[in-house]
């Protein structure tokens, strides 16, 4: 079966908040019963969700920065916790990340070269002249000029440059799986395309990417497949073109119609109506059963409150909604 690079099997994650306040519940169910897989064939899988949907948790679970409360996360058939216990070095060489914040990801005390040298030393990639050559190569591969980058401190470079250095770090390490956590959301529009193109290019180097974002637009641009996550549950998934052009889940449809289109001829025709009773923040998901989107869904039925819909396969898409089947 395992032609899959990464498999999430019924993963749930509950966070226990240390000490509780008047600010919310003591436990937060970040993920509930999440299952998906990334094939060994290099691809870009987008995980689209809003803040609080659980996407960052998935990111941290893959990297081993957190452990699942239940369920299994398998990398190349072996569980991540096993990897970290027995072959940690190998695992972190193969599974890497690009963070969202191009500012905070650099230690302001050191020059930017250091992030590259750190990788070279820790992963024994090369040494001496060979190492330097590789660094030059990796910077040029992402369109940066080594002479203008090396020797600088983070504050002397722009966000776009810093994020691209992170890309060259990936070039150096050449992992198998890259988790990109909102890598362009803090970049200016004019710099995003360049960055995303490189991310797409990684497929040719044999690197599969999990592209985590809240922005459907960029997901549409680079992803082969899309998963829609809401409140800790995956609601829909499928090939990008299919999910965008033919959205099945009411949440997906709502996302698509709520995005502003950069064309004054295509302005929103409908208006959002606030349901006064639902003003309040959804604090701590009631994922005891039932579809988390129940509160906001215009098609909600009684059974949606009690049970979570099973996965239905429609053409190449999969959706969890009682409207289907």
């Amino acid at each position, binding site marked *: 079966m395992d032609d899959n690079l990464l498999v999430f099997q019924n993963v749930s994650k509950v966070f226990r908040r240390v000490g509780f306040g008047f600010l919310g519940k003591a436990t937060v169910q970040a993920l509930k019963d999440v299952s998906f897989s990334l094939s060994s064939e290099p691809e870009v899988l987008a995980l689209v969700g809003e803040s609080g949907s659980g996407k960052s948790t998935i990111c941290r679970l893959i990297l081993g920065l957190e452990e699942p409360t239940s369920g299994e996360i398998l990398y190349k058939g072996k569980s991540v916790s096993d990897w970290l216990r027995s072959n940690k070095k190998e695992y972190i060489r193969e599974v890497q990340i690009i963070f969202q914040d191009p500012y905070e990801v650099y230690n302001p005390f050191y020059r930017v070269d250091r992030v590259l040298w750190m990788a070279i030393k820790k992963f024994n990639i090369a040494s001496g002249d060979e190492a330097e050559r590789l660094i030059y190569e990796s910077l040029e591969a992402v369109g940066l000029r080594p002479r203008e980058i090396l020797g600088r401190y983070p504050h002397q470079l722009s966000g776009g440059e810093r994020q691209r250095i992170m890309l060259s770090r990936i070039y150096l390490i050449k992992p198998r799986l890259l988790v990109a956590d909102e890598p362009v959301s803090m970049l200016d*529009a004019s710099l995003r395309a360049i960055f995303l193109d490189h991310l797409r290019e990684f497929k040719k180097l044999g690197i599969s990417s999990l592209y985590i974002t809240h922005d459907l637009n960029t997901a549409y641009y680079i992803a082969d497949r899309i998963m829609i996550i809401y409140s800790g549950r995956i609601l829909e998934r499928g090939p990008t073109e299919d999910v965008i052009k033919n959205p099945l889940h009411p949440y997906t449809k709502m996302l698509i119609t709520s995005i*502003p289109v*950069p064309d004054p001829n295509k302005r929103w025709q409908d208006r*959002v109506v606030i349901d006064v009773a639902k003003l309040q923040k959804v604090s701590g998901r009631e994922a005891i059963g039932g579809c988390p989107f129940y509160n906001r869904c215009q098609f909600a039925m009684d059974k949606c409150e009690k049970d979570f819909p099973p996965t239905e396969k429609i053409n190449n898409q999969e959706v969890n909604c009682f409207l289907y089947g």
Partner: protein
Amino acid sequence: MNTILEVENLKVYFKTILGDAKSVDGVSLKVFEGEILGIAGESGCGKSTLVEGVLKIYKPPCYIPEGKVYYKGIDLLSLPEEEFRKLRWKELSYVPQGSMNSLNPVIKIEEQMIDGILSHSDLSYHEAKELALSALNSVGMPPDVLEMYPHELSGGMRQRVCIAMSICLNPKLVFADEPITGLDVVMQKLNLQTLGDLRDKFGITVVMVAHDMACHAEICDRICIMYAGKILEIGSTFDIFSDPLHPYTKGLLSAVPSLEKKDLKGIPGLAPSPLEWPSGCRFHPRCSYRMKICEEQEPILKEVQPGRSVACFLYGGE
């Protein structure tokens, strides 16, 4: 079309160890009554600083070396702070960036709104409360909100409370700085529509500062494109999107992703630093249409068609 606000060659600088950071370096524009004007640009272009300069809410090391701002004919910058204070909130109002996070978490919304009203007017508590209720109603929020604490509301709702706060004293002109950053998609739509309502239902003029071109497309009547402390192009939203003139505008638009197209192009090069703007046209290092003159001289913002101005040598501009 009445001009409600006119900015003339405004400069807003920051004193730093390495010299002056010229964040806003000679901006001139007019805001017409009853419109929504968008100020678009990427980070570092000076758009937020521009608003802070106009409303005189900057603090040292920021200062204004040159320029004039006229609100309904009144010279704002030479007004003593006492007088200006009377204008703020009553005529000119402001929804700052990230304001939804600046609400005091331990004070009820009611108190915060009324505090704001009382500090800018001579009303009684009761009168102030009436105004607060009316403002909340205008943005479609129920009166119960007054009894809540900020943390009980979602980010998007808090932002709407901030919008409501800004219109309590019935201002004529509201500045909104990045009003939808950090909000969920549906909240973004809701809040943008609320800003649109300010214009449609209450005749309030809105100046919206945002980097997201799609937002400008949705609700703005006219858009100013800002880059490196200067305005490069001004025009109606339809004109800007259908026929962008300035190379930067073209680049900016082609870099905006959408579900309607599969190609995205960026703009090569990097945004310059306010400590040392490029010579001549500030965009020339990154411009694919650049000519010799672009390096040497700075183009002037010139009206090339009625209602359309651009600062580029491709269209005159000497």
